[in-house]
């Protein structure tokens, strides 16, 4: 997934919360929890970067954490919150 160009689904709204954010998908009406503020920043910035790797770099996320973020982003793709551009 690291080399994929990603973005937030256009029908998804993010609502900031103390723990991170709620993501609501207006099309399938599902609610997804983003459980860390850094994850929220990453997801919001995906559109501005050519791929996940550069988004991770730009957000200052240490390389040894990329696998974990990769998995979290993959699960957001499965729930259609994040899409490949």
């Amino acid at each position: 997934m690291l080399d994929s160009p990603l973005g937030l689904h256009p029908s998804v709204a993010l609502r900031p919360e103390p723990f991170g954010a709620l993501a609501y998908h207006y099309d399938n009406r599902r609610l997804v929890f983003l459980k860390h503020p850094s994850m929220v920043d990453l997801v919001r910035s995906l559109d501005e970067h050519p791929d996940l790797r550069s988004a991770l770099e730009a957000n200052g996320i240490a390389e040894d954490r990329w696998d974990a973020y990769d998995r979290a982003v993959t699960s957001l793709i499965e729930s259609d919150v994040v899409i490949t551009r």
Partner: protein
Amino acid sequence: MTRLVDQMKTGLDAPICITWELTYACNLACVHCLSSSGRRDPRELSTAEAFRVIDELRAMQVFYVNIGGGEPMIRRDFFDIVEYATTGGVGVKFSTNGAYIDAERARRLAGMDYLDIQISVDGADEATNDRVRGQGSFATARRAMENLADADFGEFKISVVVTRDNVSQLDDFLAMADGFGAQLRLTRLRPSGRGVDTWHDLHPTLDQQRDLHRWLLAHGERVLTGDSFFHLNALGESLPGLNMCGAGRVVCLIDPIGDVYACPFVIHDEFLAGNVRDAGGFTDVWRTSDLFSELREPQSAGACASCGAWDACQGGCMAAKFFTGLPLDGPDPECVGGEGEHALSAVTSVPKPSGDHSRPVPVELGRR
């Protein structure tokens, strides 16, 4: 890292799930009505006030609202309110008995975006349903479902309150939903509103609760429950969901006159947090009311502290305890460990309802 569910318990900046009863007026008089509905309250929010509530919900990024009543479609401005919400990004799911969904309204509803409908049915056959919801109500609900299906509405919901009489019909409800291309939603019977008087005879027995738990584990993926049955988790395997009481933390209720209560099942002065007509509106009630702040404090397990199942069931439902006269920091009246029954036998008084919008029961006068 703190578990998500613990974060939820300290409250969110805005509710996830908000129920908004638009009117106390209702054409039916179901024996378990949570809001004791029947007569319209003259203090009901006006259309303009309802729009202001929606403006606040949008600003707070409440993504959708569950509209109910009473029978919400009785309001003449029902479609205006729903359209104002859905076109402004606040999705609507509304509960109805179906009496006002004729072919024409079904087509109108089918043409709207971000709209879900829940048709209430409390028996898989006419006799079982009408005993609870009143004569003719099963036929009315079926007609509404047929009209929605004919109008190609798509996947609506069939909403069932699980009772002692219908818990054996869960497969039949599922078949009914499949027949309409609908989704089944099951919720827990609560001793609230008129349910105060009927709960003792209608709530599932302990054996039935075990059957229900097994059934939900087997079919849970296909069935919605609104996290209604987390008290059953003490039986072992946990049901899907947040497994916590969301009252004042992630859910709340706005009633027809704008009063804000901790959850849809506690329309009582004890759980009244404020009113949307107050100076700071709904937003301030949600964020700063004393009641909600108190509910967001860590709750004591009380008498349940020594029970090994407390982590699983969290002591159950606050409303069910309150209206059956049980202490809030003790077992749920339907505690699957049997502690509820034990506690109920010691109850000497139950809280008096603080409001009732039931229509007067016609008294038959004897002939002279």
